[in-house]
Every structure is written in structure tokens, then in C-alpha cells.
């Protein structure tokens, strides 16, 4: 049998991620690079790196799904799907009992309900504001002079948390500035920021409801403090993928694989 390989390319607002799988769904390589100013170039670069890592060439690839905000700029893709569908399928592949996916991406966050095959049933997204997204944390890390890892310190649920607005990144940033001016300990501010995001996510979760296991995807899943707070708020344990950033790309690769398999079906009739 000829080897078949499928690729998902997720050009997000902050990072561009590529996942390559074989015909059985086994992951061969995964790459995450910053998107920078040119999504198209980032996609090319990430794709080439992933190919190299898997020891494959472009000619050997069967199908490619582009997803994410920059999906239209991926000229080498054979199909395009929204990141919402991709995160659903990706989460299903990693945790088959997933019924709900919470994706906290760079530019937006979403709560997605999926069926037993990972297909999206319903979803909700944050409105245009960046509060409750990865970008929110990035802005705040910059303001607090912490890197994103430091910002993910495990939250002490019982500890103090500075009150921070969850409605607007710009306003929240000025709140952080005034908290710093008042010598509020940084860990309290970090805790307050994590809580602010969790509150945003919570309102989306309540609007759509929770079904089955809940899987958290997107780069913000690396933030251990936030995960702890979210689990406390939801009253359940979240599935956290090993590489939460590449779940969308992984889903894209599986969508390409499914589409290819479907395209074979009429021929067998």
C-alpha cells in the first residue's frame, strides 16, 4: 500500500501550527512557530519544518487542510475548514469521550460541543473584545514584566486575588497599572488576571452548556494556574492535551484524512 500522509496547517493570530499524520492517524510531526506579520510565509516555513521532522517531502502528502484566521493565505492547502470544526475533531482524536471543547486561542476563545465522532454540534465565541484570550495574557505579561510561563504560576485558590475587570483588555491593562502603582503583589495580580479569563470562559460555557468530558485546547492550556481555577469553577477535571496548541492543526489533518476516505467511498460501490 502506498503511504498516505495528511497535514493540518493552523495559521492563528499568534502562532502557526502544523501537524502531519499518516493514514492510520498516527502523528508523525508537530510544529509551532510564531505567525509574525506574514501568515503565508509562516505557513510555508512551519510546513517545511514539519516535513523535515517527519522526513517527508511535499510530493508525498495526500491532502492538506488549512485552518485558523490565516487559512485563506495557505496557498498549498487542498481544503479549508474553520478552526472551530478542527478543534472539535482534534480534541476528539486525543480524548474520544470529549463532548465539550474549550479553546482559548490567541485572538478569541470558543466553547464547542461535539458529537461522538468529533463533529461540531454547536459553538459559541467571545465577542470582538480580546478579554478572555491568549492575547489578553500576553499584554498583561508584558505589563507585569513576566514571561508567559511565570504568568502561569499555580493559583492558590484560597489566596488573595486582585479584582480585575473581565470586559476589556485595554481597561484591564490600566487596572493592572494602577494596581502596580499601589504596590499590589504581582502574584495577586496574576491570580486576578487568571480569574478574569475564567469568568469570561464561564459565561460562554453557561450559554452553551457542558456535555461529556471537557477538553481544553489552545496555548492558554499551558497556564497551570488558570487550569486549576477553571477546573474549580466548572467542578470537573479537564482533559489537557500534551500539545494544546496543535490540536487545531491535528484536527485539520484528520479532516483531510476523513475527506480523502470519503472520496474513495463511491469508487468502492
Amino acid at each position: 500500500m502506498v503511504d498516505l500522509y495528511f497535514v493540518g496547517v493552523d495559521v492563528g493570530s499568534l502562532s502557526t501550527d502544523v501537524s502531519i499524520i499518516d493514514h492510520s492517524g498516527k502523528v508523525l510531526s508537530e510544529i509551532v512557530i510564531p505567525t509574525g506579520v506574514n501568515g503565508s510565509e509562516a505557513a510555508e516555513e512551519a510546513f517545511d519544518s514539519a516535513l523535515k521532522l517527519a522526513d517527508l517531502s511535499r510530493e508525498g502528502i495526500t491532502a492538506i487542510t488549512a485552518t485558523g484566521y490565516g487559512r485563506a493565505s495557505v496557498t498549498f492547502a487542498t481544503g479549508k475548514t474553520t478552526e472551530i470544526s478542527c478543534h472539535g475533531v482534534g480534541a476528539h482524536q486525543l480524548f474520544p469521550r470529549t463532548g465539550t471543547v474549550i479553546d482559548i486561542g490567541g485572538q478569541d476563545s470558543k466553547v464547542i460541543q461535539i458529537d461522538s465522532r468529533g463533529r461540531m454540534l454547536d459553538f459559541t465565541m467571545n465577542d470582538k473584545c480580546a478579554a478572555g484570550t491568549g492575547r489578553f495574557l500576553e499584554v498583561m505579561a508584558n505589563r507585569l514584566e513576566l514571561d508567559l510561563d511565570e504568568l502561569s504560576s499555580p493559583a492558590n485558590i484560597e489566596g488573595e486575588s486582585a479584582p480585575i475587570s473581565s470586559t476589556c483588555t485595554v481597561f484591564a491593562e490600566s487596572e493592572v497599572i494602577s494596581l502596580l502603582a499601589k504596590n499590589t503583589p504581582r502574584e495577586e495580580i496574576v491570580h486576578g488576571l487568571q480569574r478574569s479569563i475564567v469568568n469570561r470562559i464561564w459565561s460562554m460555557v453557561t450559554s452553551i452548556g457542558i456535555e461529556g468530558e471537557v477538553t481544553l485546547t489552545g496555548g492558554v492550556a499551558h497556564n497551570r494556574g488558570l487550569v486549576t481555577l477553571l477546573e474549580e469553577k466548572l467542578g470537573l477535571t479537564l482533559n489537557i492535551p500534551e500539545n494544546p496548541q496543535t490540536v487545531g492543526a491535528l484536527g485539520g489533518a484528520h479532516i483531510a484524512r476523513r475527506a480523502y476516505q470519503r472520496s474513495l467511498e463511491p469508487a468502492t460501490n
Partner: protein
Amino acid sequence: MSIRTELRYKIMKDYGAPAVMALQNFKKRKPRPIPEAFGPPLESNKRLKEILSRHYFLSRYVPGVKKVAWVTSGAPVELLRAFDFYTIYPENHSALVGAKKQGADYCGIAEGSGFSQDLCSYARIDLGHMLSGKTPAGKLPKPDLLFCSNNICQTVLYWYKAIAHELNIPLIHFDAPFVTSEQTEADINYMAQQLQDMIPVLERVSGRVFYLNIFEDILKRSMETSKTWGTILDAMKAQPAPMTIFDAFGHLAPIVSLRGLPVAQDYYHILMDEVETRVTQGIGAISDERYRLIWDNIAIWYKVRFLATFFAERKMNFVTATYTNAWAETTGYLNVKDPWNSMAKTYGQIILNNNLKHRLDLMKKMIKTYSVDGMVMHSTRSCKPYSVGQFDLRKAITTDLDLPAVILDADIADERVWSEQQIHTRLEAFCETLEGSKHG
């Protein structure tokens, strides 16, 4: 009224307006090519454009001839017609400004004068127009009277109060108690009495006497017009639907702003004949209708073409909307033999003055009778009465009817609120759900 101004109005009405319309048609630019996804456009579009252009064109010659009233979309305008007011609908005008993608300019003028950005964009555009005199319609006449009803929102009262204060003119407010479960006898009496109490004020402002028989004729005409509009919307139950809801958003203008006048009555007969012929001949508004959708809330005026094309290209057609239905829903209560109480029932029970349970039942019924596959809800920053409750409605509808739905955060006329990329992703994800739900 001087003989000169009256003569000028008559000349403009009989000769000026037709000449301008003819000139418009003569210098007609090359028609925009119709994308393949659409069926043949409605012939009635031309007549619609003529009616609206003529209405705005003539309005500039009206001062000194007729009294001018600015009216809200849900106000019982039939009563004003009995005094021959020339009516201008600021909401309709603001929608026009929005459709021309000039909303942000006008809103900015109002905001510069201290009106909050959180106010309805129809209000901000209108206030921006009042403060600057700017309008894409050439020139609008200043009002002699303001007439509003809180049956669509509370904002209209404060918006019209601001105009009344600025221009020092009378404001009549028709207070419609919110229908929490059923309309009560006391509510109906209260509203019916208000309508009758308006007569002396209207006589004073217009300088005309109220004649019941004239009013009854107007009421009859209004009823008949709304009924025809209802029949037109009903025709969209056909598969394929003869027009899209985006067409209907445009064809809504006469029923909103010229209701009770012969011109609106005649127009809807033309449109009705056309859509019924299309149904008989199987002509669809889009070339290949595979999915049928319902729209909730007011149009996103500056993105009508974008949305129409986006969905038509995906073989999806909006076949019904709570918005367009609002001008057909309650007019069945109108009764010439009982004018005051029947108007109270009609205007007191319109969708935005009625409870959420009513809206849910109505939407479920529309989804069933129009064979709807999915729902798009526009959550608009401008209209809180329309947007609050949409999350609950969505939850109830998606659960009870297993219907895919999406909420778009946008605005009716302030294009600054639109975020193309976010909306695009949402809509595409919605289409993916819809395709998955219909084809497994």
C-alpha cells in the same frame, strides 16, 4: 400656507418628481452584474426605488404646504394620516445612511455633541443629521411634530425628547404597556384613551379637523396593505423561495414608512403579483436553494449585500425573519368598527413589546411553517429590546428543535462595530454545522 409654496409643491409632485425619476432612469449606470448564485432579480425593485426616491425628493417641498411629523416605526401612524401630515421615519432614514456605509460619520457627529456611543445607532445617526443637516437624501424637512411610541424601545422617547428640546416642537408619546403574559383590558383601555386624547393636539398642530370617516378609510387601507405584506411573506414558504429576506428588508420600507397611503397599498399588490408568479413558475431568489434559514433581529444595513452573497454562494437562503414579520404579525387585530381598541391591540402587542415566551412560540412556528434548517441571530449593540433574551431563545430553539444556530455580534447601522474576520469564521463554522446536520 402661501399660494406660491403650495403651487410649487403641486408642480413638483405632478411634474418635478416624475421628471427627476425619468432622468434617474435615463442616466442609469451600467447595472451591477448579478452573481451566478442568485436567481433573476425582482422587477418590483425599480418601482420600490421610484417610490422611496419620490418620497424623499418631495419632502423638501413640503414645508409650508403640509405639516411634517417625524415618526417611530411602531407608532400608530394611521391617526396622523387623518390630519394629512407628511411623515418622515428617522429609523428608515438612518437605515439608508447605514446602507450607504456612512453611519459612522453621522454617529460621530452625535458623539461629538456628547451622545454616548452606547446609544442606538439609529438615534445617533438621526441626531447627527439634525445637528449637521447632512443626509444622503438631499434635504429633509424639519418636523412640526414628533410622534413616538415606546412599543419598540424606551430609547425613542429620550431620543425624540432631545429633538423636541432642540427644535422646541411638540412631542406626542404613545405609551404601550409591555405585555408580560396577556394584554389586559386595562392596558387596552389605557391605550385607546391615549389615542383619542391625541386628537385635539393633532388638530391644533395640523390646523385640520378630525373626521372619523377619513380615519376609517385610512385604517382600512393600512389593514389591507399589511395583509398583502403578510401574503408576500407567506409566499416565501414555497421551495425555492421567490425572494430572500435580504430583498424583503428593502421591500419593507413602504409598509414601515408609507403605511396607510395608497402608494404603499398599490405597491404591495405589484410585489405580491410578482412573487406569486415566481412561485408558480418555480423561480427562486437564489439559483440552487439547498438550505433554508431564519433571521432574527434588524438587518445589518451596511452588510446586506455581503451576507446575501455569502449565503447564496453556499446555497443557503433566508426565507423568513422576525423583523420583516413584525409588520404583518398583529395587524389582524385592526377593526374599523372598533378603531381605538383594535389599534391598542395591534400596536400594544408587536413583537418588541411582547414577552419572550411569545417570541419563542412565534419563532418555533415560523421555523416549522417555513421549513427552516438553521437560524442566524443578529445580536445588535443598538437594539437592546431585540437582543436581550437571544441567548435563551437560541438555547430553547436549538434544544427543542435540534436546529443549528449562530449569534452574530454586530450593529444595525454603525459599521465600526463590524469585525469581518470574526464574523466570517463564525458564519463558516455555522455553515459547517448546518451541512453536517443535514447530511450526517
